[in-house]
C-alpha cells in the first residue's frame, strides 16, 4: 500500500464511525479526507471551527468564494441549511459538547487516551490552533494516523513523551493496520487489517493491547 492508499483506507474506516445526524469536525490534513467517504445516506453535518456549520465540497476552480474557507484555509462551500457564527460561538459549540465527533492526526497517542499532536520540542512550534479545544470538547475523539512514524517507530505508546494536546480524551484510534478503542482498562484491539495480523499490530504498538475473542477485520 502506498501512502495515499493508506490514507484513504484510514479515512474510509473513520467515516463509518459516524451516525446519521452527527455533527463532526474534521481536523486539518488527513482527517479532511474523511469527508470523501461519508455514506450519502447518512446526514452528517460538518463543522468548521473558523465559523460555520454545513461544510460542503470545494467549488470548481474559478468559483471559489474568498470568504468561504475551511479551518485549513482551503476553499470550500456552505451547504443550504448551514449557519455562520463568530469564533466564540464556534468554540462554544465545540467545548460545549455539541460536536459529536472530531477526527485528528497524532504524533503520539497512549493507552490512557492522552494525545500529543501539536509540538515537538526543539522544532518550530506552529501553535495549537483549535486542536486543544476540539480534543477536550468533542463527544468522541477519533485519531486517524499511520500506525508508525516515518522512522518506523510506534506512535501508540504506553505514555506520550511529547507535550500533550489533552489528557484522557481519545476514544478511538484508526490506522492502516488496526482499529483500537481506548477503554478504562487500556487499549482494546477492535479490528485488524486483512493483510496484517494481531501479532504485527502488537509488534508495532508500544502499549500492550487487550485482545478480545472477536477481533474484526479492518477493510
Amino acid at each position: 500500500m502506498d501512502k495515499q492508499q493508506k490514507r484513504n483506507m484510514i479515512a474510509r474506516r473513520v467515516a463509518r464511525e459516524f451516525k446519521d445526524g452527527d455533527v463532526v469536525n474534521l481536523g486539518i490534513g488527513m482527517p479532511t479526507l474523511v469527508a470523501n467517504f461519508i455514506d450519502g445516506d447518512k446526514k452528517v453535518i460538518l463543522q468548521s471551527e473558523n465559523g460555520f456549520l454545513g461544510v460542503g465540497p470545494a467549488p470548481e476552480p474559478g468559483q471559489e468564494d474568498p470568504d468561504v474557507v475551511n479551518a485549513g484555509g482551503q476553499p470550500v462551500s456552505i451547504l443550504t441549511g448551514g449557519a455562520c457564527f463568530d469564533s466564540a460561538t464556534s468554540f462554544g459549540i465545540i467545548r460545549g459538547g455539541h460536536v459529536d465527533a472530531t477526527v485528528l492526526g497524532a504524533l503520539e497517542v497512549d493507552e490512557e487516551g492522552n494525545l500529543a499532536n501539536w509540538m515537538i520540542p526543539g522544532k518550530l512550534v506552529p501553535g495549537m490552533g483549535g486542536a486543544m479545544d476540539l480534543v477536550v470538547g468533542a463527544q468522541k475523539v477519533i485519531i486517524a494516523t499511520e500506525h508508525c512514524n516515518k522512522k518506523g517507530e510506534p506512535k501508540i505508546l504506553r505514555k506520550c513523551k511529547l507535550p500533550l494536546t489533552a489528557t484522557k480524551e481519545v476514544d478511538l484510534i484508526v490506522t492502516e493496520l488496526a482499529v483500537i478503542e481506548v477503554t478504562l482498562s487500556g487499549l482494546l484491539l477492535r479490528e485488524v487489517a486483512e493483510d496484517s495480523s494481531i501479532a504485527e499490530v502488537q509488534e508495532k504498538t508500544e502499549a500492550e493491547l487487550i485482545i478480545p475473542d472477536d477481533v474484526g477485520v479492518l477493510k
Partner: protein
Amino acid sequence: MKKILSPKEAAKKVKNGMSVMVGGFMVVGSPNTLIDALVEEGTNDLTLIVNDTGFPDSGVGKLVAADQLKKVIVSHIGTNKITGEKMNNKEIEVELVPQGTLAEQIRAGGAGLGGVLTPTGVGTVVQEGKRVINVDGQDYILATPLRADVALLKAHKADLAGNLVFRRSARNFNPLMATAADLVIVEVEEILEIGEIDPDEVVTPGIFVDYLVKKGGAA
C-alpha cells in the same frame, strides 16, 4: 453618524507601543487595507492579538515581515514561517493560546468579566503559570480577559450608525474584538445609509464602532 477615515488617517490612530487586535482567520476577514496603511506608516513596537499571523506576504504577516511587532498573542503561527524564525531569534515574543480560549478571553474583555474557566489545556503546557480552579470535581484553567488599545477589523457592510454585518467565514474574531478595544476601526466593502440594515440582522451594534474605512480606499 460615524466618521469615515482614509486608510492613512486610520493608521495614524495606532501609536508605537500600542496593543492591537486584528480580525481574520488565515487572512479571511482580515482588514487588509488597514494593514497596508499601517505597514506604510511604519508604526512599531506593537503587541498584536490575532488568531494567526497570516502568510509571509499577506494579512498581518506583513506587519511581522516589516518588524513592527514586539509581541503576538495568537493561536497559530504555522502558516507564516517568518513569525517562527523571528520567535526563535527572540525578535518577537509569541504567546500561544488555544483558539477557543483566545476567543473567550477577548469576549470576557469586552463583556466586563474577570475571566472564564475553561477545561481546554488542563494537564498540558498551557496550564503552566495559570490558575487552576476546581468546580464540582473538575479542574479548569482561569482564562483572564484580554483588551487592546485599538481593534482593526473587517466587516462586509456597515451603515452610518456603525452597525456591522459580516459574510460567511469572514466573521470569525471580528465581532468579539469590536467589544474589547478602546478604539475600534472597521474596514468595510460598503457603507450604507442608516436604516438599510434591519435591527434584527445587525451582528455588531454601532455603539462598538468608532471609525469606518472603505476597503481599498484612497490613502
